[in-house]
Structure formats: C-alpha cells, structure tokens
C-alpha cells in the first residue's frame, strides 16, 4: 500500500472532521437510536468471535513453524516463491521426530505485505499462533522491522534470503542461511570491474529500502577501492517512471547499470531500458533471480546478469520433484509466477524448512527457547549446499555465489561460472 497517499487522505479527513465536528453535536439526538443498534451489532459480533475462538483445541503432537513472508506488495512475487519452497518441503516431509514421539508439522503463514509497518503485526500473529520457530522473510527491511517482536516473544527466526547484515547483527534470535550483502556486493563489484571491464557504473537504489540501499553501498565501497567510478541515485516509493534515470545513466557515460531493486521496479526498468535502448549491461543481486524478470526480459533488447543462491539444474532430483508438485495445482503455479521455473529463493525456502526440522530434532523439544539454543550448532546438507552457522551473529558460512545471465530469446537463465571466494 502506498503509505504516503494514505497519510495525505488521513490528514484531509482529520482536518475536515475538526472543522465540522461542531455541527455534529446537533445531530446527535436523532442518531441515538442508530447508535444503540450499532452497539448491539458490535456486541453480537464480538460474541461470535468468542465462540469461533473456542473451537480450536491444541493438539499435543503438532509443532508449528511460522512462515513470515510477503504475499503482496513490492516483494509479493518473491515472497510467494519462497513460501512455495517451504510448502513443498512440508509436503515431502510433513513430520518430525522429537525425542520419541513423531510430531506433525503445521505451517502458520502470515503476510507481512512487504511493508515495514506491517511486519510487527505479522510477527505478533505468528507468535500468538504458537510457532516454535519462524522462517523468513524475503526482503531485509521487513525482517529488521519484525525482528524486535520475535526477540520479545522469544521465538527464533531463520532468515532465508534476507542478505542485509543488520538482520542478524547484535542479536541471538535471528539466524540466516544465505550469504550477506558485503559478500555479494564485493563479488558483484569484482565482476563489473574484472569480468565486464567497466570503469564507471550507474547505481540505482530505492529510497529508504534496506536491501537495495545496503547492497549498493557495499558495491560502491568495493568498486571505488578497485579504482572505478560510480554515479549513485535513488528513486522514491511509488515511482514508475524510470525513463529519466535511464537517460541519466546514458548521459553520464556509465558502462554498467547496477540496480538491485525489487522485482516490481525491475519489470519497469527492463521495459523502459529496452525501449530507450540503454546499451549497457544491467547487473543485479539475488532479488532478480525470478521468472518475473525472465518474462519481462523475453524478446527485449537488454543484457542482464545477476548473482544468486542456486542455479536451476544443480540438483535434478529436487528440480523435477518440485516441478511436478507445482504443475499439479493451479494456485501453486500462479504463485510461482505462471510457469515452473525454479527460482533460487524456492530452493532456499526448501533448505530453510529442513534446517528448522534439524534444529527441532537436535533440541529434542518443541520449545522455542530450546530450539534457539540448538540452532547455533545445527548443520545440514541442503540442495543449495552445506549449511552451517558461524558463532557470532548466526549467519551461514557460504563462499559460493552463482552467476546467471538472462537469455532473452528462450526466456530462461544461462548459468555462468560460479564465483568462489576464499
């Protein structure tokens, strides 16, 4: 939702209310009748909710895993794909052995609407539902915004693809199974400087967005230390006219266009870059590893290279099983963006689920506190590689970044050699 317009409207309502409130008092008398009826209605509604609440009874052999992901807003597309990975893992392995008893895993899903001010509410929903451990979120901003609620609630969270360092920094309840932006930014800067041979890069981030702003910062840091030059700009929320930014990039003589923004803005950038004949490589981070980008780039005159967590084809068994599962249901297919391309976030979501199960097994308990303890020493071999956490912030120890190039004729990704950093 566009917070800005909402505020404007609220201000107007408030102002008018102030102006006319004096005239209201006169009308109160005749409205008494209506008000009584209204209170009766509200009371009966409240009663209804109470009854509804009484129906569900806690089953002792159920362990709940919260899914803290956006299903709408800027990052809705990516959030849905990550959730699909978790759901698929849950479909493959619906139970977990805790001590001697077998528990059924129930997923509790809350939509954080890609919005920092909705994150806390979604987090509270998950805690109140009794989640033992929470997975998510896609998008670093919402993860940071929801973090405090999880800390107070004492529930451990496993970040799946939120790459901003601040998510886990200085806390003991937020963990993460992916690489971080300083690492990704460095790899991208090296790639732009060494492989693409660029000396001047145009960077575009969204104003006030923790993910794109952070990644651009780390990129700039590395790129300038290599001896390159950058032109860095930001665009405000709700902007859909990128023509001037593209013109800026062209006019300033840049050789690479780096814009690790949300997929929603990416669609527009790709479209306008093509129609304005941008004429330089577009470089982006893990967010762009989505079929939304492929669909937007298909048949267009663009050259897109991205870094990501998992290349399709790295684990054929997982790929084919997931494709079969997605194609079996129309809702799943539309949540995956209308086709069965596997995005890296789906594979990461899949691994996150098994990582959580392993932690529950290690803890031999469904208590959030015990799981939080156990997470520090949990290790698994996932489809995206071996996952183990370092002991300071609880971040994954990863040294491989996969690089992909969008093929605009077939509408698929071409894998480029992966970058391994020691």
């Amino acid at each position: 939702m566009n917070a800005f317009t909402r505020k404007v409207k609220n201000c107007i309502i408030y102002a008018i209310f102030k102006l006319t409130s004096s005239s209201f008092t006169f009308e109160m008398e005749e409205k008494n009748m209506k008000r009584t009826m209204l209170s009766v209605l509200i009371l009966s509604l409240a009663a209804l909710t109470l009854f509804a609440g009484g129906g569900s009874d806690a089953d002792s052999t159920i362990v709940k895993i919260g899914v803290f992901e956006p299903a709408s807003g800027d990052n809705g597309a990516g959030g849905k794909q990550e959730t699909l990975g978790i759901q698929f893992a849950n479909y493959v392995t619906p139970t977990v052995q805790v001590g001697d008893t077998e528990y059924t895993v129930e997923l509790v899903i809350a939509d954080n609407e890609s919005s920092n001010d909705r994150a806390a509410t979604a987090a509270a929903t998950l805690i109140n539902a009794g989640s033992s451990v929470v997975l998510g979120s896609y998008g670093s901003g919402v993860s940071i915004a929801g973090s405090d609620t999880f800390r107070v609630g004492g529930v451990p969270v496993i970040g799946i693809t939120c790459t901003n360092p601040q998510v886990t920094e200085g806390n003991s309840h937020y963990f993460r199974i992916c690489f971080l932006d300083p690492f990704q930014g460095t790899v991208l800067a090296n790639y732009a400087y060494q492989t693409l041979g660029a000396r001047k890069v145009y960077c575009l981030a969204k104003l006030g967005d923790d993910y794109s702003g952070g990644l651009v910062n780390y990129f700039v840091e590395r790129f300038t230390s290599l001896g390159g030059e950058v032109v860095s700009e930001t665009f405000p929320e709700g902007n859909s006219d990128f023509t001037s930014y593209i013109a800026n990039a062209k006019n300033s003589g840049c050789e690479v266009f780096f814009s690790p923004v949300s997929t929603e803005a990416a669609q527009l950038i790709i479209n306008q870059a093509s129609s304005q004949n941008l004429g330089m490589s577009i470089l982006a981070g893990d967010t762009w590893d989505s079929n939304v980008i492929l669909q937007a780039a298909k048949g267009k005159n663009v050259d897109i290279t991205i870094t990501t967590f998992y290349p399709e084809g790295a684990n054929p068994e997982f790929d084919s099983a997931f494709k079969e599962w997605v194609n079996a249901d129309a809702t799943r297919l539309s949540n995956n963006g209308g086709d069965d391309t596997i995005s890296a976030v789906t594979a990461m979501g899949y691994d996150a689920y098994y990582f959580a199960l392993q932690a529950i097994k290690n803890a031999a308990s469904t208590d959030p506190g015990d799981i939080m303890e156990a997470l520090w020493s949990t290790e698994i071999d996932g489809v995206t590689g071996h996952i183990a956490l370092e002991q300071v912030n609880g971040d994954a120890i990863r040294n491989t970044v996969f690089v992909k190039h969008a093929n605009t004729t077939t509408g698929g990704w071409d894998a480029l050699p992966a970058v391994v950093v020691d």
Partner: protein
Amino acid sequence: MEFFHQNLSYFLSGISVGGQYALIAIGYTMVYGILRLINFAHGDVFMCAGLMMVYLSSTLPFTITIPLVLLLTVLLGFVIERVAYMPLRSAPRMSVMISAIGVSYLLQNAALYFTGGLAKVYPEIPFLSNSIVIWDATTRVVTIVTPFLTVVLVILLTLLIKHTKIGMAMRAVSRDFETSQLMGIKINRVISTTFMIGSLLASVASLLYFTNYASVTPTSGAMPGLKAFVAAVFGGIGSIPGAVIGAFIIGICENIIKGGASIFGIPGSGWTTFSDAFTFAFLIVILVVKPTGLFGEKAVDKV
C-alpha cells in the same frame, strides 16, 4: 540547441507524463467544479482500467479490448457515482468525501484480491509500444502520441462544454447547484455524465500511461492520482485549462529535476532523491503567491 539535443529524453518523458496527468486531472477538476467533491476514487478507477486491459487482452484481440475497456471504465464511473455518491446528495459534503475514500480503498482491496498482490504486466499494444528514434533519443511511439492526443481530447471536451445542451447544463450546475435544479435541469443526469467523461479520460490515460510503464499493481493508481490532483489544484481546481496546464507543468518539472545533474550541470545524487519534494515545494510556492491556483476563480461570497 546542443543542450536541448542532449537532454531531449527528459523533456520528452516530461511532456508525455504531463499529458497523462492532464487526462486524469480533468476528471478531478470537473467533478470538483460540479459537486465540490474531491473524488478520491478517481486514481483507482484509472488503475482498474489498467487491470481490465491486462485481463481482457489475454483472451480478446486489441480491436475489441480497447473499446471494451473504455466502455467498462465509463460504466464503473457511472456505477460508483450512483451507488456511493448519489444517495448522499443532501448529506454534508464531508460524508460524500468519506464515501469517496471508502470507494478508493474498496477498489484497491478488490484489486489486491483479484491480482493476489502481484504486479501484472501490461500488454504490448501494437504501434503504441514500438520504439522510435527522435533526434538520437530512443523512446516509444506513445510518448509522442500522448501530448497530441491530450490536446485533441481537451479541445473536444471544451467544444462539448461550450456548445452542447449538456455542456450548458454542466456550466449552469457548476455555477449554482440549487438554482439550476429549479430551472428544470436534470441534475442527476448532468452529474452522471460528468463522472462518465472523467472515467473515459482516465481510461485513455491508463492506456497511455501503462503502455509506457508496463506494470499494474493495486496501488499504481495512487501516485499518478495524487500528482494529477495536485495538478488540478495547481491550475485552479474547477478549471479545465488550468488542470491541463498544471499537469504539463508538473510532469515537465518532475523530469527536469530528475535530470538536474545533466540539465543544470550540477552533479550529485540529490536530484532524483528529492524530485518529488521539489515538485511539491514548487506547488506550495505557487499557492502561497496565488492561493486560487493559476486559473482558479475568485471565491465570491454570496449574501
């Protein structure tokens, strides 16, 4: 000349965005002129037109889809007025405005429900979506078509208001609501027509806007709607030429500021970051100097 050549793409996109804002702004300003109502749902009607296009074009050819979308948007505007505003004709003005805000959220949330919260890719309309090169600046045909189409539509609208019976009725109603009712003008018909014209122009604007910025989300009507509203206020709300000129000024200013580093020769990243802030600050300055807007009528106190 060299300066103009170099920065042509900023001016082109400024003029084209200005034209699109103008078409939306007319809807705001006409409704305000007649009902003294700020129709907050207007930006969302624009968004709905975009979504209709996305869904209809997936099964039907463009020759059918485009007229159908125009027709359905007009119908939507008509229905909104009949359902949400007409029953409140004698209510305090604030109630109608709250109702408008309600309709706005209803449309946004209905769109959220239908799209599942994901951005929909707007179809490529043949001809309009083609790329062309003008004096070394590559752009789309729609960018060039927009200002001309806007001017043609505004001229047609002015003719309608000046020279037809319904236009005369509109002018009478906007001058004095109650007296014109006494004179036998069918007020509901006039108001419905106003909403239908506004919606028609909004759907033309959505066609042009989304061809350029090809992604429709439930909130994509919010920002263009707000900017068009600002343009209407800027030009003097209630005045059609004012809204059109205001919209062009806002659209062009916005893009000139975004290209500030290149146009004014002062490098820095602040230009794009604060482009909206500059635009709105400009609005404040104009309103401080001329509170009724550029072409606004002076308020006359009737005794």
